[in-house]
Structure formats: structure tokens, C-alpha cells
């Protein structure tokens, strides 16, 4: 689960990480009140779940209440386009108004904690090249990134913070702040069950203080069950409505731009493989949709509703490998959903496994226009032929 910057900073501050003083604002009035509280200069920052906001015009400095008011008026409701939002951008619905930091003589660094899946352990990463896209740094100058892995039983140790700080070229006053700062960031990573904590830029001031100038916290969805307080931070307006709807029915749906063949598959790997085989057959998949192992009648109905809400979908391709699930039960669910929702687009069904012959004959005798394929390749070709070819 993604969080807004102001939420991330709030969580980090609660673990002892220094952040600029700031407040979230959902209206122009709130923005003005926030600026009054934090003082000037103030920074007005658009809050969306995407990076690159500064370049897109979503971060501005204000020196007066009037300036804050006009900035807030311009930003709230604007469509902010960054390299991470795609061309359609995101509507700005909230702002963070925070105290402007003295950048004179300050250094911008980078710090992140995440799980290194190769090693199976958390890794703390730092770079003296902050304030830029870290992936660019990683590609152009990998030596500028330093890493230290954390023993999960022992936890993060102070020497690791010192090691990082030395590698980043810090000394004196600023070196001394490394241990409390990085330890607090690591503590936040563990206590919130985060998937990622990233501070970029991490400001090291002329006086040697460390401040999280920007912060990103991604939470592990699987751990939210034990963090009911963090669930409340979810901002549904930042998510695709169809994907949210799918989640309510335990379906995993991801829309793909420009595709015309709506897919309904059980299992994530088979769902990806089905998208691949559609492409090989000359079509383009409209989505990824995993109905899971059970695929009951309710889920099939919900899946159809979601697929058909996408106006690009010209054909539906169902690919189910019924291991435990019986194909006749599946066929019953598909027939009921197609009747009930008055599905008008062609439906291609490929099912394999338990009672597949019975399932197929039920589809054939339903009086509805189903096309059935024996193998995956054949089904994909049928879907393309039924109108799902490249436009």
C-alpha cells in the first residue's frame, strides 16, 4: 500500500526521524492556516502517489500568505503529470505545507531500507547523490550507492550506521547524527512492516543536522492485518476504481492500456502466460485478472462486470485449469453470469481438468454463443479471430 508524503513523514517522525515541520491541507483555507503555523518561507507540495512532482510543477516555495493562497488555489484540483503518472496524470486533492529548509551549504543525500530478495534480508542503502532518481544513479554510477545488509535476528546495529556515514563521506558533527537517524529509519521500517522506506533527498544541513526532506513509505499489504491504524491511511482516490472493486471480490485485476481481449484466468502464473499467448497469437490483452483457486459463481459474475466495464474489451477469454475446481461448476457460473449480465461480446472458454467434457457440453447446450478451445494456443487464436486482433 502506498502512502502520501505527509503520512510517511508523520510515521517517520513518530519513530524519532527529524522531518520539516508541516501540515496536510485539503482546502485553500487549510493551506493558509498551515502556512501560518509553520512560518516562512513555506513549501507547498502536491500530494499524489507518484514521484517526480517537483519537475511537474507540484512543489513550490511561498514567501507570504497570499502566495500560499494562490499556489494552493492553483494546485488543488490540478492534473499533475510526472514521469511516474503516465500522460493522464493525477488530480491533486491534498497538499503538504511545510517549513522551507535552509539549503545554503547543505548536502542532499539518499537513504532507503527495503528487502533484498536475493539475499532474503533487509538492506539499508545510502548514496551521497541524493535528490535525483536513484535508478539513474544505479545505472550510471553504481559505486555511488553503498549498502549494508541487516541480520534479522540481531537487527540494525550502530556500527552499520557509522559505516554507511563514512562511506558517504560524512565527518564531524554530521557523522555523529548518523546513528540516531538511520537507526530510527530502520525502526520505522520494522515497526510498520514496510516494504520500502525511502528518504530522497535526505538533507544534511550546514550545521550537521539530518532531515528527511522528502519521504516515501510503501507498506506490505500482507501485514496490514496487524496494523488496523495504518489501513486508515489508504487513499482510494489514488487507486483505479476497477482494481478496487476487484479487490472486494478477492480478484486480482490490473488494466493494461490499449488491449482488446479481456482475460479471466485462475492463478497468477497462468494469467500472465495467457496474456503472453494472446500477444503471440497477434492480439493484445486488456488486463491481468486472476480469479484465484476457488472461482465461485459470485467471483465469476464480478469478474465479468469488471471486464465489461472496460469499453476497450471486444472479446472475453476465459482460461481455467480446474485442478480442484470442477469444470462443470465453472461452466454453470459462466452461463449464469453471461445470462444475468446480458454479455454481448464473444466469449471464448478454455477449460482443462476435472469434468472438462461435462463443462464443455454444458456450454454447448446453453444456447449461448460460447466458443471453446482445447488448448491455450487454440483459445487465444479463437479470441483474436472473434475480434480481438490488433486495431
Amino acid at each position, binding site marked *: 500500500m502506498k502512502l502520501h508524503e505527509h503520512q510517511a513523514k508523520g510515521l517517520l517522525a513518530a519513530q524519532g526521524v527529524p522531518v520539516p515541520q508541516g501540515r496536510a491541507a485539503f482546502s485553500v483555507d487549510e493551506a493558509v492556516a498551515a502556512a501560518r503555523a509553520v512560518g516562512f518561507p513555506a513549501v507547498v507540495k502536491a500530494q499524489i502517489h507518484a514521484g517526480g512532482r517537483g519537475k511537474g510543477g507540484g512543489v513550490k516555495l511561498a514567501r507570504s500568505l497570499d502566495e500560499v493562497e494562490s499556489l494552493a488555489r492553483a494546485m488543488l484540483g490540478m492534473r499533475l503529470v510526472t514521469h511516474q503518472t503516465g500522460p493522464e496524470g493525477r488530480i491533486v486533492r491534498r497538499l503538504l505545507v511545510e517549513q522551507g529548509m535552509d539549503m545554503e551549504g547543505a548536502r542532499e543525500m539518499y537513504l532507503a531500507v527495503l*528487502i533484498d*530478495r*536475493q539475499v*532474503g*534480508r*533487509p538492506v539499508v542503502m545510502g548514496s551521497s547523490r541524493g535528490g535525483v532518481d536513484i*535508478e539513474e544513479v*544505479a545505472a550510471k554510477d553504481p559505486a555511488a550507492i553503498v549498502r549494508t545488509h541487516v*541480520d*534479522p*535476528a540481531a537487527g540494525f546495529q550502530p556500527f552499520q550506521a557509522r559505516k554507511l556515514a563514512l562511506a558517504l563521506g560524512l565527518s564531524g558533527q554530521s557523522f555523529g547524527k548518523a546513528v540516531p537517524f538511520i537507526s530510527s529509519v530502520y525502526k520505522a521500517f*520494522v515497526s510498520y*512492516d514496510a*516494504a520500502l522506506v525511502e528518504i530522497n533527498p535526505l538533507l544534511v544541513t550546514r550545521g550537521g543536522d539530518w532531515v528527511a526532506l522528502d519521504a516515501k513509505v510503501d507498506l*506490505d499489504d*500482507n*501485514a496490514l*492485518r*496487524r496494523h488496523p491504524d495504518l489501513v486508515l491511511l489508504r487513499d482510494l482516490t489514488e487507486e483505479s476504481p476497477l482494481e478496487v472493486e476487484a479487490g472486494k471480490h478477492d480478484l*486480482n485485476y*490490473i488494466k*493494461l*492500456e490499449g488491449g482488446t481481449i479481456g482475460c479471466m*484466468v*485462475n*492463478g*497468477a*502464473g*497462468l*494469467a*500472465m*502466460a495467457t*496474456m*503472453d*499467448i*494472446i*500477444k*503471440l497469437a497477434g492480439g493484445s*490483452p486488456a488486463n*491481468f485478472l*486472476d480469479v484465484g*483457486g476457488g472461482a465461485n459463481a459470485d467471483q465469476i459474475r464480478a469478474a465479468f462486470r469488471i471486464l465489461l466495464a472496460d469499453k476497450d474489451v471486444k472479446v472475453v477469454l476465459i482460461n481455467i*485449469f480446474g*485442478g*480442484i475446481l470442477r469444470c462443470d461448476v465453472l461452466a454453470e457460473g459462466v452461463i449464469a453470469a453471461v445470462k444475468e449480465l446480458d454479455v454481448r461480446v464473444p466469449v471464448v472458454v478454455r477449460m*482443462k*481438468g*476435472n469434468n472438462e467434457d461435462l463443462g464443455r457440453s454444458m456450454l454447448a447446450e446453453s444456447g449461448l454463443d460460447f466458443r471453446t478451445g482445447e*488448448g*491455450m*494456443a487454440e483459445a487465444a487464436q479463437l479470441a483474436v479471430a472473434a475480434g480481438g486482433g490488433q486495431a
Partner: protein
Amino acid sequence: MSVIVGRETRVVVQGMGRHGTFHALACREYGTQIVGGMTPGKGGTKIEGFPIFDSMEQAVREAGANAALVFVPPIAAADAMMEAADSGVGVIVCITEGIPTQDMVRASAFLRERGTRLIGPNCPGIISPGEKCKVGIMPGHIHTPGPVGIISRSGTLTYEAVGQLTALGIGQSTCIGIGGDPIIGTTHRDALELFARDGATEAIVMIGEIGGNAEEEAAAFVRKSVSKPVIGFVAGQTAPPGRRMGHAGAIIAGGKGTAREKMDAMRAAGIAVVQSPADIGAEVARQLKSS
């Protein structure tokens, strides 16, 4: 012959709820020695004829268990795996999907320290058809004994590959679903090493997917140490970057972990990579004939 599980495997099912019990029965029916179930607080009772234990230690002592099959809900699954490892069983198969990643970090370090082999989590399990041993949730009836070892990160896509092989009259030595999570026990590379040594395995199918670099590591191992034919497929050739495709591990991050990179690495290592998932069975047949 087979790898990891066989006739001598004695399984305790952890988490004898509806799901766990259903699969305990299906495994027993297939021929697996299911020696009991474990649900704390239900010790001394019986479910479907299976003796129930309060702890894994009891299950090992009283029923001679040497493997655990875990169906415990995600929040408690790491604890269950660590209990199993502590009891001394050598193999843990964890079916549970949705375990918090940081829990897995702790559990996998704990298991590694004790030398316990873990399959999964978030996997269909493992099956050795010739040994009549199924420790997992896969449909037993689609499998048939034979010379092909299968390693896969996905469930139903594995069934698809098995279905193609069985339809062509080609059986399997052992099929291992290694799981779709970012942190798993047995990896592609580990499984390849076992199959390379297994006398009953003549060819290996490796089904990968986007995300991480386990396929690249496996490819490097194949190039160096596997002389048997290896047939590969990578799911997610059409997946967009930055989106988690169902499996928590299936995400292209920062331009890394794409299907293209993985397929290139596998091809360069001499693996016969098929572009279409429908061609896995036919390619295996071709490789077996020419080897």
C-alpha cells in the same frame, strides 16, 4: 527415485481447518503417508481418522513425522514453520499465501540455521508421482510417473505444463512448486541442483516469471553444472513495469526482472526456452528424443 519427497516421507499437516483437512485427505488418497495433523488446543482428538497433536514436537515423537505441510493462516504461518523446524522435521512445505515479507525474512533465517528445507510459501507443494507421494494441493490425477523434473514459481501454470506432458505420454519424476513470493525457501537453482543429481530425472522443465533474478542465477548454474536438457518458459512477457502481477514476487522494478532479460540469460546458458506456454510439452518431447 525422486527428489525431496518419496515413500519414506511422513507428513504432519499444520492447520487442520477446512482447507487443511480437505488436502490432508486428498494427499492420503494419493498415497502419501499423512501421519497426523497439528492444531494447538485440539491435541488428542481425531479428524477424519488423523490423530491431532498440540505441537510439532509431539507429532515427531509420537507419529514419527519427518515433514510438515503448512496451511496455517498468513499472520501465524512464520511461527508454524519455525515450530516445525525446531521439532526437527527435515522438510517443510508451506502452501499459505500472503505471509508478511518481514515474517518470511525472520523465518527463513531461522530455518536456514537449522538446515531445514523449505518449499514455498505461496506454492502448490511438491509431488513425486512414481513414489505415490504428494505433499501439496495439486490435482494428483493429472500426474504420471516418468523422467521429467519440473520447477515452477506458479501453480496452475505448472498444472498446464504437467497436463501437456501427461497428454504426450511423458511422466514426471518430481514436480516442485517453489512459490510466487519474493522470499522463498528452495529456489530454481537449488531444485536444479537436486534434479541434476537425481538418477530418475532425464530432463528438467523450469518455469519462471518476471521479478527478481532467480532465473538468471539458475541459468548461471545450468551453464556450469547441468548436462541434462533443460526446457524453460518465463511468464509475464507482456507485463507492464511497476505492477505486481498477482504474485507478490512478480514485479518488474526499476527496469529489472523482465521476461526478456530472463529468457536471454536462460538461452545463453543453453536452456531450450519456448516463447509460448503451449509449447512446453512438445519441446520436452523433442529434447528427450535428441538426448
